[in-house]
């Protein structure tokens, strides 16, 4: 049995892809397929999984796929450190990304770029149907195209079929180059063909557009001060969860959280405290309560409450230092962007998670960033990240 595990975000079309693949593989008489999503209350933007199983006989095992022949990531921010655990021996990861992953078991395809060029919007799923049809002998290209004809509205047929062809071409070329798979002795560091195009267009765009976002990227690594003392709020305390206790009651403790929502987002809000006027519109309008007021005396350069608002900056004449007025709980922020939209002072911008995480890593090494809160060596942990330790182990 061939098993395919799809990772996507709610609304990205992972289940549609899983279904189309199953439909394609079962068009031939005597072949069987099963496609289903993971069912949960999670909503748009939340990480979700879908599964396709392909076999020559009826499939009785209807449980979720734990280890797959092909694991597809429709969003590369979902590709975590444990990706190899979901792979069968000889299996392959396919990821929608412009990055090169330096591992022969990972095939990176810029499906967003390819689909945006053809469809006008990045809808990556059919690119991976094409890629799988090139890789897996169980799935024929003509059946994928037939499935598209049967399951998609007519006006989408031609473009999606051309995407399937483009994906097959790319995979066959990369396969000949030995860029992935067991035949590949060592992954080269160069971006692959699909990624190269989009990197070019990205750098072209960067030259023409004023990168005001850079100011926020530099700030993205700054740790956040804690929430106000004594604030009532549901908290992460999964370590305390005792099934036997809950098995005997229908009455549960309020505000008991076991999982963070941070995995939902691929962009995060970053607050520029120099531009922030403290109007608190972002705090008021956050649907998730992840923006909070911080102590006006809190000096985030030393990680403590100083009570002073005049500080030496760069050893030069004392400048009035504006207190940080709001902070973001990145453990629960879903990246909706409402805060940035309601900010009238351009003090909040949405920074891509990838850039933010890179900035977080550089913030660990003490380098002064002018006019930013990203000065490192800050000796406090966000309250939420302390509580979250157990959740990471989940």
């Amino acid at each position, binding site marked *: 049995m061939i098993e395919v595990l799809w990772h996507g975000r709610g609304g990205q079309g992972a289940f549609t892809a899983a279904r189309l693949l199953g439909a394609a593989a079962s068009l031939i008489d005597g072949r069987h397929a099963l496609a289903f999503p993971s069912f949960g209350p999670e909503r748009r933007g939340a990480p979700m999984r879908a599964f396709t199983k392909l076999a020559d006989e009826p499939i009785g095992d209807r449980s979720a796929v734990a280890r797959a022949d092909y694991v597809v990531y429709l969003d590369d921010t979902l590709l975590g450190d444990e990706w190899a655990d979901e792979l069968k021996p000889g299996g392959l990861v396919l990821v929608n990304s412009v990055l090169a992953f330096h591992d022969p078991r990972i095939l990176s395809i810029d499906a967003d770029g390819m689909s945006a060029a053809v469809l006008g919007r990045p809808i990556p799923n059919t690119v991976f149907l094409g890629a799988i049809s090139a890789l897996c002998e169980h799935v024929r290209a003509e059946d994928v195209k037939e499935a598209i004809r049967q399951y998609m509205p007519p006006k989408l047929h031609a473009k999606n079929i051309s995407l399937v062809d483009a994906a097959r071409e790319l995979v066959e070329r990369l396969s000949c180059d030995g860029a992935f798979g067991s035949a590949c002795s060592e992954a080269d560091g160069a971006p692959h063909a699909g990624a190269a195009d989009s990197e070019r267009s990205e750098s072209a765009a960067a030259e023409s557009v004023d990168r005001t976002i850079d100011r926020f990227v530099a700030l993205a690594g700054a740790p956040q001060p804690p929430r106000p003392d004594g604030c009532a709020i549901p908290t992460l305390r999964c370590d305390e969860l005792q099934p036997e206790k809950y098995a005997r009651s229908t009455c*549960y403790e309020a505000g008991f959280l076991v999982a963070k929502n941070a995995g939902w987002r691929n962009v995060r809000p970053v607050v520029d405290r120099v531009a922030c006027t403290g109007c608190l519109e972002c705090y008021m309008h956050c649907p998730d309560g992840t923006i909070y007021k911080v102590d006006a005396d809190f000096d985030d350069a030393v990680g403590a409450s100083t009570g002073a608002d005049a500080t030496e900056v760069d050893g030069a004449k004392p400048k009035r230092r504006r207190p940080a007025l709001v902070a973001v709980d990145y453990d629960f922020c879903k990246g909706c962007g409402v805060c940035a*939209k309601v900010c009238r002072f351009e003090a909040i911008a949405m920074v891509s998670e990838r850039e933010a995480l890179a900035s977080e890593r550089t913030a660990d090494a003490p380098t002064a960033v002018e006019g930013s809160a990203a000065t490192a060596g800050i000796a406090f942990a966000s309250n939420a990240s302390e509580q979250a330790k157990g959740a990471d182990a989940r």
Partner: protein
Amino acid sequence: MAVNARTIADDEFFFGHKACAGCGGSLAVRAALKVLGPNAVAALPAGCMSAVGFNFPQLSFANNAMITPFAATASVLTGIEVGLRAQGKKPDDCTVVGFAGDGGTADIGIQALSGAIDRNDDVLYICYDNEAYMNTGIQKSSLTPFGAKTTTTPVGANARGCLTQKKNLFEIVAAHGIPYAATASVGYLNDFIRKVERARDIEGTRYIHVIAPCPTGWGRAEDEMVDMAKDIVDCGLWYLAEYEGEQLSGQPGGRFHLSRNPKEFGSVEAYLRSQGRFKALTDEDIAVVEAARDAKWEVMQREWQG
């Protein structure tokens, strides 16, 4: 003390939930609970907010909260209130509050709500109106506006979206002679918060109807949720008003009052055209919607002022 951005409690009673990014309903629940405080007891029927708030073991309410049968929000509120009082366990600052969606209020829960108002039970009922059954994947409710596309009012060669008008639930509730009722929108959050605070301090049944956009169901970017909630008020398709019953107003039959009475409206067309769900509306349809708005406002401005 007036609750505003500076004075509102730091507490977050609805946090860590699984609502979509940019969810208007979760903002309404969060803001209301921040005003009502730690002793508020919440009841929620089937609907988005209960589906995203109670995922055992992820329990996202920091105050006492429970799920009710779909039709029974107001009855459960009654029971909680009476039960707490009978046991001598109701603190002075305890508000028993219900959060139900538009379907759970205007369709399925309307008789229970009507009964609670009839008995004048001491409860606060908040309807977060996202204009369809969003929890189950966008089906029409009686608060879905004319022309909106839902899965049960599709758009195509032979179908033109929702053919009925949005039920006027605020005035239906007011017609009971309820002590206090109000309309609000999360786009005018200070107004909503002021009304929750006002309702908190009134005895008897109180009802607040708050517009809470659903980016997924309305077909607009999630970061524009607040803009949608503002636009619907600015273009006049929703109104911010209060109804004070006889006791509060001192007038027989009570008194309606517009909290916001704009001199001129934003464009109805721009509001409708910005949302995917109204894509199929023709120019004639939009003219009809606009005429209905003008007729409604003419009455409101004549009767609800002063």
